[in-house]
């Protein structure tokens, strides 16, 4: 078991280093960092000075190493546009994105799993068919279209909810800001989180449904039925457990992609999060922010993957045993 964990850790670190090197390449070789940072009037001498200061005249390997070490300390340099440390810029916006992503994840799970179980067990009911139709729409339509639709309905026509921004936020501790504690904050959270959650929700629902149907066809369910166990026991004691185990993996990985889709949602709703910052940085060729965002997101994904792998190994006894010994 320990060997397994170590192996996964090493693999994760390997991926992180690889991504870090890509980020470094981007940082160093896309455009000229010095020219991006200074004005036109700056003399050649001053540029050379700056170059030396930044260590850009050192051998590439040393630069790469420094980049990686700095990154590990969350030092990503200074933004070209804003002339502020990238870490501060991202840090200021992180709570907005994380809060949105968290709410959306919980929503997608809380709605997706029960709907999936329901549509599997009551295949032919009208409600199940409705869910199926809705799921097709949820999975087909691009996120931004759904966002715009919601805005049109609830902000323009009904005027119930705000169409942009985060509302009033409350500061917690030195860093975190939350919109959960204010009325306007909560209202602002509704549409973006639904938009963000919809795709995942339908994905989870379809997955749970497919898995459950598959499990219900298995031999051990047939044998359980043959032993006269109640449908309730079969559905919730036997089938559900077996359904959820493979679902966990996928759900865990999907949580990561919520972060990716948050970029889109933040754009639609002018949500002041990391995603918006990243997009701006692309528009303005602000490489330090781009590189930092890439590294951050990659790290998050790698960590999530690692955790999911470990959870899976903990939950499925077959995997646990495979890691230890052979059957008697």
């Amino acid at each position, binding site marked *: 078991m320990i060997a397994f964990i170590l192996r996964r850790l090493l693999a994760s670190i390997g991926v992180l280093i690889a991504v870090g090197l890509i980020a470094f390449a981007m940082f160093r070789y896309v455009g000229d960092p010095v020219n991006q940072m200074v004005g036109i009037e700056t003399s050649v001498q001053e540029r050379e000075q700056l170059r030396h200061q930044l260590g850009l005249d050192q051998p590439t390997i040393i630069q790469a190493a420094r980049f990686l070490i700095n990154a590990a300390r969350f030092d990503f340099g200074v933004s070209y546009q804003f002339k502020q440390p990238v870490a501060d810029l991202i840090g200021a916006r992180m709570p907005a994105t994380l809060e949105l992503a968290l709410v959306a994840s919980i929503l997608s799970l809380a709605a997706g799993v029960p709907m999936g179980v329901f549509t599997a067990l009551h295949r032919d009911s009208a409600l199940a068919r409705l869910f199926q139709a809705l799921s097709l729409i949820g999975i087909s339509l691009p996120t931004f279209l759904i966002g715009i639709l919601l805005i049109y309905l609830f902000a323009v026509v009904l005027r119930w909810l705000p169409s942009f921004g985060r509302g009033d936020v409350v500061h917690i501790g030195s860093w975190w800001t939350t919109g959960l504690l204010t009325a306007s904050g909560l209202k602002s959270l509704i549409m973006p989180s639904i938009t963000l959650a919809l795709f995942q929700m339908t994905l989870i629902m379809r997955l749970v449904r497919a898995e459950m149907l598959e499990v219900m066809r298995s031999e051990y369910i047939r*044998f359980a039925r043959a032993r*006269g166990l109640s449908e309730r026991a079969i559905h919730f004691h036997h089938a559900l457990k077996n359904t959820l185990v493979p679902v966990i993996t996928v759900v865990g990985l999907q949580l990561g992609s919520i972060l990716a889709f948050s970029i889109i949602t933040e754009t639609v709703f002018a949500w002041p999060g990391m995603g918006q910052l990243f997009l701006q940085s692309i528009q303005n060729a602000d490489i330090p922010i781009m590189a930092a965002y890439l590294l951050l997101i990659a790290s998050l994904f790698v960590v999530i993957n690692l955790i999911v792998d470990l959870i899976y190994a903990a939950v499925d006894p077959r995997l646990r045993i495979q890691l230890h010994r052979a059957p008697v």
Partner: protein
Amino acid sequence: MTGPLLSVRDLRVEFATRKGPLVALDGVSFDIAPGEVLGVVGESGAGKSLTGLAIIGLLDPPGRIAGGEISLAGKRIDSLPPAQMRDIRGRRIGIIFQDPMTSLNPLLRIGDQLTETILAHKSVGRREARERAIAWLGEVGIPSPEKRIDGYPHEFSGGMRQRVVIALALCAEPALVIADEPTTALDVSVQAQIISVLKNLTRRHGAAVMLITHDMGVIAETADRVAVMYAGRIAEVGEVHEVVRDPLHPYTQGLMAAIPTLEVSARRLAQIPGAMPRLSAIPPGCAFAPRCPRVFARCAERPPLMAIGDRGAACWLYDRAAVAADVRT
């Protein structure tokens, strides 16, 4: 108890297909007495498993019972509402499936699966159910049952798993156990052990067994009576020793002749020419007629199961009138 434990009369099972209903079992009739071991033997596709599934009410759609009667201890069970059928399963009829690797839920401990079944059918407390579960594991021959009861299925070998399956099928103490090819998926060396476990346990608890298999050898050793199935119908039924020694139906005769023995000197294995017809292509009349070495004119009409003493055979050869009529033409 007087009368048979299980009585099957004219059982007809159909599958609804796009091209119309497909008859899989056509007029199957037999009895099982309390505590008796009835072997049901036949080739793959003859309908043996379907018969077992129909009896315990586990036919998957599009299959359905289209006719006939199934009675357990005198009461009909073929058309019971689902809730009542659920009561019967496990408590009065148990079933053992072929593949022990897939019969057990891989994510639940076998102790849980056992106690759950016991609790569903017997009014005992949790602790008592666990004690019983341990006892059952011991009865099927699992060593150190009190330790292994908390194990997961993949920690057991195939033979051990099938023992657990037998324990699961019997732990609610049903009067009838249907064993659907219980050894087919196991190593040859283990097969004999499993059969003996099954036999001893059912004898000890007074349960009857419907032993479905294609292995005539197992039947000869284990069963009291045997029913031979062919193309969804019963070809012959009778006491095991009589059927083996003196088969009546030409199909059974062919089966017996095809079994190699050590005494006979090396010559070609006798084969029954041709193959059993697919369900969609069963000829009218006797299903075996196209392959039968003793076919005659009357065989164009389907023979009923004729009683010859306390044996039965579905063959016109045993109808004196038919034979006589044939001699004359």
